[in-house]
């Protein structure tokens, strides 16, 4: 397909053609199977790009802390019960984390003043159009935001480190890029649950000699990076609030090396190496990969 046809397909799929032009294009498609096939592929590609973005937005919302409250206001018994459960949950959470936590109670969220003063430059981010801007000119978030590293005396969740052989008959997703999962002849070396307080994900007793230890840390109060990660070799930095819901890092070793994935809040994420670059955590959307990771999690 030439450039002109590609642009025509784009314009058609993005609804930028006038009704007569769109109709004329549809006539062309009907008469040209090759063009029809190309249109179908391009439609799926655009949907794929859009769905990836939707999944990222959804993951962002899913990761937000919602003030716990008695939203079942029409049922007095339930309100009493839920309040009791919430108190217990908060106490358990504080006990488990052994760290200071602010429990939000306000019903209407407040946007910090700092954020409200910077609407003019909202769209000017060079790294991500929708990220807060106030930290762009300052130091890196890793420098400005204190990490929780070293503050924790006790892991918040029970550690699970197991070794498990996985059948080599697992279907293989056969793309060569390291970011794409390969499951054939893989071994789950370690899986660790964390809560944002967890520091070390130790791939203890790996089956393969090449297995690595992943050192994880979380940065919870970066203004700019709210659900992001950075991985350089075996150093993983997670940006965002991981204290409410446990995250789990899956270390999978195979012929192609060691791949890391994360399970958090019902979604799976690839923790492919970013070479020091901070990237947004985007949930995997490929159903086959998700299914395989879910199976591996169950079997570990």
């Amino acid at each position: 397909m030439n450039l002109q046809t590609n642009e025509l397909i784009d314009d058609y799929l993005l609804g930028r053609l006038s009704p007569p032009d769109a109709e004329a294009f549809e006539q062309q498609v009907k008469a040209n199977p090759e063009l029809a096939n190309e249109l179908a592929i391009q439609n799926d590609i655009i949907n794929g790009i859009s769905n990836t973005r939707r999944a990222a937005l959804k993951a962002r919302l899913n990761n937000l802390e919602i003030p716990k409250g008695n939203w079942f206001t029409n049922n007095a018994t339930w309100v009493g019960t839920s309040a009791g459960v919430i108190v217990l949950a908060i106490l358990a959470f504080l006990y488990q984390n052994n760290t200071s936590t602010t429990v939000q109670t306000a019903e209407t969220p407040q946007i910090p003043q700092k954020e409200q003063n910077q609407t003019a430059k909202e769209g000017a981010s060079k790294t991500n159009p929708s990220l807060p801007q106030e930290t762009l000119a300052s130091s890196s978030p890793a420098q400005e935001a204190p990490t929780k590293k070293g503050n924790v005396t006790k892991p918040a969740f029970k550690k699970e480190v197991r070794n498990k052989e996985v059948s080599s008959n697992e279907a293989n997703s056969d793309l060569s890029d390291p970011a794409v999962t390969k499951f054939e002849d893989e071994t789950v070396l370690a899986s660790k649950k964390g809560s944002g307080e967890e520091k070390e994900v130790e791939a203890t007793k790996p089956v393969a000699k090449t297995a690595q230890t992943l050192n994880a840390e979380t940065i919870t109060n970066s203004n700019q990076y709210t659900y992001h990660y950075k991985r350089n070799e075996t150093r993983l930095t997670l940006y965002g609030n991981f204290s409410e819901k446990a995250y789990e890092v899956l270390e999978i070793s195979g012929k192609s090396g060691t791949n890391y994935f994360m399970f958090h809040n019902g979604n799976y994420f690839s923790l492919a190496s970013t070479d020091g670059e901070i990237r947004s955590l985007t949930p995997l959307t490929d159903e086959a990969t998700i299914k395989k990771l879910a199976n591996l999690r169950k079997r570990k």
Partner: protein
Amino acid sequence: MDDQEILLRLKKRDERALDYLYKKHYKMMLNMVVKNSGTEDEAKDIFQDALIVFWEKATGDKDFVLSAKISTYLYSICQNLWRKELDRKARNSGDMVDKGEVVDYDREERVNIINKCIATLNESCRQILTLYYFEKMTMGEIAEIMGFANADTAKTKKYKCKQELDKTVKQHYQASDFLD
């Protein structure tokens, strides 16, 4: 923050405005679904989807103006999505299974390949393509956000990124075809 200001922020793709709406209307929207036979998880899912629909409307349609309160829009979107979900559940339950539905395995395979190829794109290309295809930005806007010299540079970059994605998709799609 009033509705007009929120809309302005959404139009500028400020995700924090989305966070604000989520927190502000969470209870009301969840209540609606839960009172209509939904679970809390389903309600959360529906509300998140509704917010994304509203985001797409606000960012993608330059002429979009509020003719009602944002909460009214969100409530209405939630209701529609939940109705569709209930219909889907009804279709998939018991005797109402749609036996005539044909699963297009070829397309499923293609979609899987496309998702994997998107995941392998470099961050810059993924951003450019997202800004163009999902956020529906003009080349001028993309150039400003990405720090390119002008709209022509953005257009060239977008073209190269798209070409790279198309090429990878087709390579893998054809390879998979051949293996079949």
